[in-house]
């Protein structure tokens, strides 16, 4: 579900924030608005300024200029009354020494005056019920990451900030975490998260901002960004499914290339190409690829995306 920021109430309004460290302009005039219930992604390679942006929005850093309005108030300086309404997932080591998963959650819950009972509920949400009595230092990387998300949620905040929650996880752990993130959104939370996995953002986010070198280059729902590229579709078959010359004869095929593994059509009219291939019965190993956010990044910056 995508909500347009103008229509829903804005949870976060960021206006022209800048932050420099010496000569480095970490954040160089960033503005965006996140509406309530939205899943908003900030994407970009390492060093793009995502984390600094997030920290300014959370009220952990003061911007050199520009304003942030979080739930109608400025988050800087520290506003104790606002803190229960925001949840921030920190790096996966932000735990007390030697406590079990359940004890970590109970301790963090107590900081918000919340009883120990909710700990079990959030362990279940992140799929750690069977690890409740395991010490934090004995958990795997993915489990710790999920525990740190549970710790950010335990006081039931309205806005959740997640900084690279899926970084350094194996593919299975990443997918498990996606389910957790979707479950959080289903509870009506506003989620702001950063990632350098463009494919992941495309799947999860209602809207993304692509950042590079401290600036936002583009901001829209992922599908809109991809369509806006007007990039050709690529249709890929197994090599040998069709002769190269026969392939070049198909109507609508703008370009056909062949390598050791594949035969690749590039086309702006995929329908006639696909129906011609279907008629010939040559659909072995069929893959249809449209542009991705990586292509968007390439066209925005003129360079290949490197996380």
């Amino acid at each position, binding site marked *: 579900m995508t909500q347009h920021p103008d229509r829903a109430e804005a949870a976060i309004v960021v206006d022209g924030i800048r932050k420099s*460290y010496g000569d480095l302009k970490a954040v160089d005039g960033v503005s965006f608005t996140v509406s309530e219930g939205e899943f908003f992604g900030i994407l970009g390679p390492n060093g793009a300024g995502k984390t600094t942006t997030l920290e300014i929005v959370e009220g952990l850093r003061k911007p050199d200029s520009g304003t942030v309005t979080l739930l109608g108030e400025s988050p800087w300086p*520290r506003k104790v009354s606002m803190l229960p309404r925001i949840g921030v997932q*920190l790096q996966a*080591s932000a735990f007390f020494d*030697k*406590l079990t998963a359940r*004890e970590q959650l109970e*301790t963090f819950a*107590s900081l*918000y005056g919340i009883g120990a009972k909710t700990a079990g509920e959030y362990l279940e949400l992140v799929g750690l019920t069977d690890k409740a009595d395991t010490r934090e230092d004995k958990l795997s990387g993915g489990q710790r990451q999920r525990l740190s998300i549970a710790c950010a949620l335990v006081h039931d905040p309205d806005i959740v900030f997640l900084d690279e929650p899926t970084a350094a996880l194996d593919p299975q752990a990443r997918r498990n975490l996606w389910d957790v993130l979707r479950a959080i959104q289903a509870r009506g939370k506003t989620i702001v998260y950063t990632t350098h996995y463009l494919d992941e953002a495309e799947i999860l986010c209602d809207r993304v901002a692509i950042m590079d070198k401290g600036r936002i280059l583009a901001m829209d729902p992922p599908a809109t960004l991809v369509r806006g590229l007007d990039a050709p579709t690529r249709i890929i078959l197994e090599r040998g499914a069709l002769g190269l010359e026969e392939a070049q004869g198909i109507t609508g095929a703008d370009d056909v290339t062949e390598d050791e593994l594949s035969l690749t059509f590039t086309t702006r009219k995929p329908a006639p190409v696909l129906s011609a291939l279907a008629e010939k019965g040559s659909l072995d190993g069929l893959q249809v690829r449209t542009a991705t956010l990586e292509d968007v990044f390439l066209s925005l910056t003129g360079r290949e995306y490197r996380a």
Partner: protein
Amino acid sequence: MTAFKSLTQAGVKGFVRDKATLFFSIVFPLMFLVVFGLIFGNSGTNKTKLGVVGDGPVVQALNQTGVVDFQHYGSLDEAVQHVKDGDVPAMIAESGGTVTLRFAASDQTQAGVVQGLVSGVTDKVNLAATHQKPVVNLDSSQVEDSSLNAIQYLTPGILSWSVATSAVFGAALTLVSWRRKQVLRRLRLAPINPAVVLTSRLTVAVTLAVVQAAMFVGIASLPVFGLKLSGTWYLGIPVFLLGILAFFSIGMLVGSFAKTEEAGTAAANIVVLPMAFLSGTFFPLDSAPSWLKTVSNVLPLRHMNDGLTDFLVRGKDASALLVPCAVLLGFMLVVGFIASRVFRWEDA
């Protein structure tokens, strides 16, 4: 559960479950106490060794003095050889009415002690043999002097040192590791007053110190060591608590500057270790040069040490509270103020 209670509980659990920290803050200082207690515990009753050949009234009388440690040899020549080799400072041989005393010339003091002892005993035996009343009666008994038995100064000394070490390290390393692991950020983002976090850590430090003190006094009071607490030991409590506060604030200061746990450990060691040697923790400062005594007066550990010694073993009255309490309180306020000024939530 309140934030204070759960943070304190988390701190205690984290401490108890960390075997290495547990060892270094409780077992390690106790080892110092035991080792030093055993080494220095015997120094006061060190007996003079004496080679002995044969037996007789003089040898019997010497044995009864309780200040010599007999080494029996078979012949005069063998015993003399042991003196020459330096195994024993002197030897006596008694046979019939003759007592032969041979001593090594290298140690004049020992030689004098042995000579005096043997001739005194011989005179006594001679006198007894004449059955005459002595002209002069000697009345001798021991008095308590101000210099303390080893365990009496070791217990308050090593206790202050170990409590100070735990407080400095506990505060410094918690602060550094919480900052590095972003636990501080987590706390900053929670609706909690920093004073609550601080007092919960202090409670953990005080709890640990009380456990240390109980174990120290308990073990030192065993008959092997023989610590005797004075009647005013309870006056040591304010000194003890203020000492923890003073050293906790020093730890906060160290933790504000150090970026890594390694740097924090090194810095805390640099602060505490020299102070331990200059404050009379392991040996009394009575025989130290006067400039050293002056220097040690600016050290908080010296005053914690003196204060605890005054009340735990010397039995001083409440008027002796003033100096140690004032110095420790002053340290806590000044260092704590500086630490609060330089405190950082984040590294960058």
